[in-house]
């Protein structure tokens, strides 16, 4: 049975009302989001201007630059893996962060979902606060404890375990930790709501059929939760790949991930076409992962 459309007035034709309601949002997003990305796509095929900006000459140099270095003198191309390594490192960092977030979040979300209601709300509240707290502040907090003269190193030196501070910050480890720290709540909360809907009679059935706890968890609980796991992974992986703050603050300013590399092209380096090309690559990676996982989730749901 179809509901009566929510019209605001019987005097305005439904089609006009529909457009009037929808188009402010659509228009804003198309004009200030979709159009800019189209411009970026165009710019990625141009050459950089002398003082930033672009010159209107078609070129695939920006994309070539990711793999090759052009010699100033004889214009020959030499393979240089530097940028490729940054792209690969971004993917690796994001994958590691996603997997570790899964390992931490699955038991946590499960545990919270099986608590009695009162306790559950306290746990949820505890997870929700970091979710809402400013990401910059949280990243700064992590840097604060990881620094060479931060509380961890100071304490260890005071106790005499180490003589020199451990290199906890300004490296790949700090970035990994930063990504996990940043996006862990993004994983726990959707997993929790998935576990909330889990039918625990399935677990009883598994035990009834002689499953051990281990088997019950890995063969029954996790497979049933797969759409939730996929959703949570997306929420961690996508912001991780393009992350800017964690590598910028915890990586010590070295361009270690693609997000920073892109940022640099529009700030200090002033190579807009190269930045645009990198952006297009990052966007493509994101959309591919998104649609691939979304399709798998949809297939799972159909089965």
């Amino acid at each position, binding site marked *: *049975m179809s509901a*009566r459309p929510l019209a605001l007035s*019987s*005097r305005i034709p439904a089609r006009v009302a529909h457009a009037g309601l929808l188009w402010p949002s659509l228009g804003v997003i198309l004009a200030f989001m979709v159009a800019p990305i189209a411009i970026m796509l165009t710019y990625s095929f141009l050459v950089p201007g002398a003082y930033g900006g672009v010159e209107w000459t078609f070129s695939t140099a920006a994309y070539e630059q990711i793999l090759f270095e052009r010699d100033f003198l004889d214009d020959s191309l030499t393979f240089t893996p530097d940028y490729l390594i940054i792209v690969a490192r971004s993917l690796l960092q994001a994958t590691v962060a996603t997997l570790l977030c899964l390992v931490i979040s699955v038991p946590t979300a499960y545990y919270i979902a099986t608590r009695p209601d009162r306790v559950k709300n306290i746990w949820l509240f505890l997870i929700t606060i970091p979710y809402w707290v400013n990401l910059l502040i949280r990243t700064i907090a992590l840097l604060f404890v990881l620094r060479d003269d931060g509380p961890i190193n100071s304490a260890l030196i005071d106790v005499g375990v180490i003589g020199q501070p451990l290199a906890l910050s300004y490296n790949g480890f700090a970035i990994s930790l930063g990504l996990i720290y940043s996006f862990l709540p993004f994983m726990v909360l959707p997993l929790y709501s998935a576990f909330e809907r889990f039918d625990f009679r399935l677990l009883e059935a598994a035990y009834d059929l002689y499953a051990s706890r281990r088997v019950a968890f890995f063969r029954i609980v996790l497979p049933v939760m797969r759409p939730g796991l996929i959703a949570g992974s997306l929420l961690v992986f996508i912001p991780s790949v393009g992350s800017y703050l964690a590598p910028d603050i915890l990586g010590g300013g070295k361009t270690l991930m693609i997000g920073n590399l892109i940022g640099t092209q529009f700030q200090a380096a002033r190579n807009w076409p190269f930045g645009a090309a990198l952006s297009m690559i990052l966007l493509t990676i994101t959309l591919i992962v998104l649609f691939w996982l979304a399709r798998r989730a949809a297939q799972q749901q159909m089965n």
Partner: protein
Amino acid sequence: MQRAIKHPDPRPRAESNIVPMAGSDPVRHPNSVAAEVRNLRKTYNAGTPHAHEALKDVDLSIRANEFFTLLGPSGCGKTTLLRILGGFEMLTSGTCRIFGEDVSRLPPEARPVNTVFQQYALFPHMTVRRNIAFGLEMLGKPRAEVESTVERMLDLVHMTDYADRRPDTMSGGQRQRVALARALAPQPKLLLLDEPLSALDLKLRQKMRLELKSLQRETGITFIFVTHDQEEALAMSDRVAVISNGHLQQVGTPEDIYEQPQSRFVADFIGESNLIEAKVAGVTGGEASLDIEGFGKVHAPVAERVEDGQKVWLSIRPERLVLGSGDGQERAKVTDRTYLGNAVEYHLHVGEHALTARSPRGGLRGRQDFAPGDVVSVGFEPGSIKVLLS
């Protein structure tokens, strides 16, 4: 806009004055027509490959003050018809009149009609009292009148104690009563009820049937009731319209519909029927001789012209089959016996035909009982065979 031009005030008028108050004598509309649809068609997604004809050329008149039921299986178009009367769906062609006024183009808020929705559609953020007052407030009634009408309605449906509760704290039966009170409060000329009992359990449903019926009598408002439950339809209605596949099959009193079905669909849908194929083997003075293959000849009255050799269907209610033995006419074999408490049902095979017979208190108090495997004779009570041409 149409409202302003054609119907300066299409709202319930003071002179209609159907005061829904217990004990008062409501003003009746003798012999007038409450709702009338002519050549009504409704096609969903017209002009697309998904076009679906929900109603096909329906003509129907509903008299004032009657309890009228639209009965049919789900998807037959009965709810669509109700929604067209309520103004929730636009008809594709034809006309729809309410007390003589053409309302085909009017939105719901301009029709003197109220609806009791299937899931009640009570406003969850308002108390019972505010729910009931809503229609009156929208009509711009003075506050004092709103308050007194709400009190009367609360009393009418025995919900005074719950006046300041919210709907989601109440049981299905209570919500049902609030929905009724809300729809009756603006004193509509026509009350539409869309399967209002389907969400209730059996006992409550039976109780609400009686309440609805007495409410209709007390208020004198014309009720148009949609249901797929034939027992409900027979128990409550003054008249019933049976709808199938977008077609109006038959309109009549519950007795008419049950005793004189005019099509195989009606015979089968209302109660249970044995439907047997037969050939006309001669007509004499309104009575036909009918040949049932593998059984023999039977006689039954025919209302319409039939010709020799014409194929027809015979409808016989299970309780009007008489089983016997020892008369030398045994031709039916009992294949199964089902004990139903107040009756016993026998499944029989007669030649190619499978029949069902139901015997009240079967096997008890002198009635003969049979067991699977018994071979019995089958007789028909006089007048029990209906000849159906379609």
